[in-house]
């Protein structure tokens, strides 16, 4: 691709920066906890290689939506198509097996372990040696440990956290913990990455770093990203498409510019005059 093409491409972004196939299609999802309706009849899809944001006021059901996607919650109604197949009830570890990784709104790192071990856990699905080989730490088990360590070091390099690799994660500042959590998800080499407020509580520099990492992941590895974020500047800048939830219902869906001008969205965020 020469320079003129690149300029042409960047001039037209977004919408339609990356036109992939639909890999995740959520159809009429409803989720209830007893009498509380967390999600009501929500449909949207995610295309391969795009950055898809979910926004909405507090309690709109954004995190519940992610929990539905990776199997932590099981919706009462609706259909989930993943890579062209209807998904049956599945547990979170099965979602991970299908290449779905995620980070959490409240950091969910393994506090007692070092940065290195936390990110190494992200590769557990790819480790094949059995209990006895591991007990002897010999041959296959050791080779595997070294091979995966190399991959993990690539992630550590990518996220620029080399200097803290042996530090217990509990001792790290908040921003770095968020970064380690992203690293743990990346170590699994996911095809679909769910990020639940990766920039919450960060200062501007940390947000910029995190944005850079997210864009780089998307760009270099082609990872599809579903992002929940409250910082509208970030969302409008980096998303290809945005879906807006309010009180568990979808009130808007489309490219950032469309969503920005959607009247329902404006009233959900700013309120309406009565």
């Amino acid at each position, binding site marked *: 691709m020469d320079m003129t093409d690149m300029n042409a491409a960047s001039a037209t972004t977004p919408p339609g920066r990356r036109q992939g196939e639909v890999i995740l299609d959520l159809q009429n999802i409803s989720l209830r906890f007893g009498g509380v309706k967390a999600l009501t009849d929500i449909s949207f899809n995610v295309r391969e290689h795009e950055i898809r944001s979910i926004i909405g006021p507090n309690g709109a059901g954004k995190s519940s939506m992610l929990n539905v996607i990776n199997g932590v919650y099981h919706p009462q109604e609706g259909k989930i198509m993943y890579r062209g197949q209807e998904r049956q009830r599945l547990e979170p*570890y099965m979602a991970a097996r299908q290449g779905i*990784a995620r980070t959490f709104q409240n950091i969910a790192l393994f506090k007692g372990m070092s940065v290195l*071990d936390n990110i*190494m856990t992200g590769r*557990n699905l790819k480790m094949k040696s059995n209990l006895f080989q591991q007990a002897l*730490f010999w041959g296959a088990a050791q080779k595997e440990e070294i091979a995966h*360590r190399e991959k993990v070091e690539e992630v550590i390099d990518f996220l620029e956290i080399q200097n803290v690799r042996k530090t217990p994660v509990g001792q790290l500042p908040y921003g770095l913990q968020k970064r380690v959590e992203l690293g743990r998800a990346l170590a699994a080499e996911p095809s679909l990455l769910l990020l639940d407020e990766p920039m919450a509580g960060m200062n501007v520099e940390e947000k910029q770093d995190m944005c850079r990492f997210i864009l780089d992941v998307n760009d270099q590895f082609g990872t599809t990203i579903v992002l929940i974020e409250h910082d509208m500047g970030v969302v409008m800048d980096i998303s290809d498409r945005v879906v807006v939830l309010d009180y568990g219902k979808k009130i808007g869906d489309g490219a950032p510019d469309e969503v920005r001008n959607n009247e329902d969205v404006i009233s959900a965020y700013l309120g309406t005059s009565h």
Partner: protein
Amino acid sequence: MLYRENGQFKTSYAADQQIFPIFQERWAMALLLLVAFVVLPLVGSEYWFRAILIPFLILSLAALGLNILVGYCGQISLGTGAFMAVGAYAAYNFMVRIDGMPLIVAMLLGGLSATVIGVLFGIPSLRIKGLYLAVATLAAQFFTDWAFLRIGWFTNNSSSGSVSMARLDVFGVPIESPVTKYLFVLTVVCVFALMAKNLVRSAIGRQWMAIRDMDVAAAVIGIRPMYAKLSAFAVSSFIVGVAGVLWAFIHLGAWEPAAFSIDRSFQLLFMVIIGGLGSIAGAFLGAGFIVLLPLALDQIPHLLGIPLSTATITHLVHMIFGALIVFFLIVEPHGLAKLWSVGKQKLRLWPFPH
């Protein structure tokens, strides 16, 4: 000054993955093993082996097994005594009922039997956590107490309810004298400690710790909670079962179910907590604290020449020992192993402040 990694550069991941990455530590460990395997057998008295070293080593092994479950996987168990008992009685039955059964094979089969029972009683861990799980594992304790007391088959219909094991040998070498018993136990403990350390630094160990620290996140990155928890129960009760075999065969010689009562379960849990949850060295430190310290305290008035009656000394030991437990838990809730590693960190910089 002596303990630091200055100039010791790691040039491969294999070198970085060593159990003792620092040169001085490797020498200290080699020295410790030399003392344990060579020097002590030469200078130790029979009392030392019989009353101090053998019980210390076997309880360390049991604490190590329990630590895998409680410290690494975060599943509280009060059934340790029961799993020891299963190991001991199973190995006894293999020895009595099968002619020419070698001791080591019986020991491993005892461990495997404990594994089966351990996994069975570990199933509730899939649904319940914390103190509730502790209460559920208590069921194992009461069940085995009852089974080994009431079901005659397990004790080969012994009329007194007590069973005994004599004339042990390994590869034709009789395990009779205190020194040979000590060396046999020491070898078993070293082998299991090494394997346990390997497990906890491998993928399975990380899975256990992930489940312990944040089970939802662990499941989300693809760890099956059922596999991780039950494998921790399996490995833990295997080691605990082997420790039970050693305790019964080597230390006691003749035993009844009371040897594996709930007191034993609590004692082992205290060792793990005081020694350090989630640490292999912690199991040894905890066992040392609980086994050796009362013995040492017992001797102090005698050594100082203070005339106290034996009963008074016993009471004093209980009080001081209790106070020390409280003291250590306040100073370092993460146990002696944590104190030890903090000490090592300080030593790396000493005599400079930072």
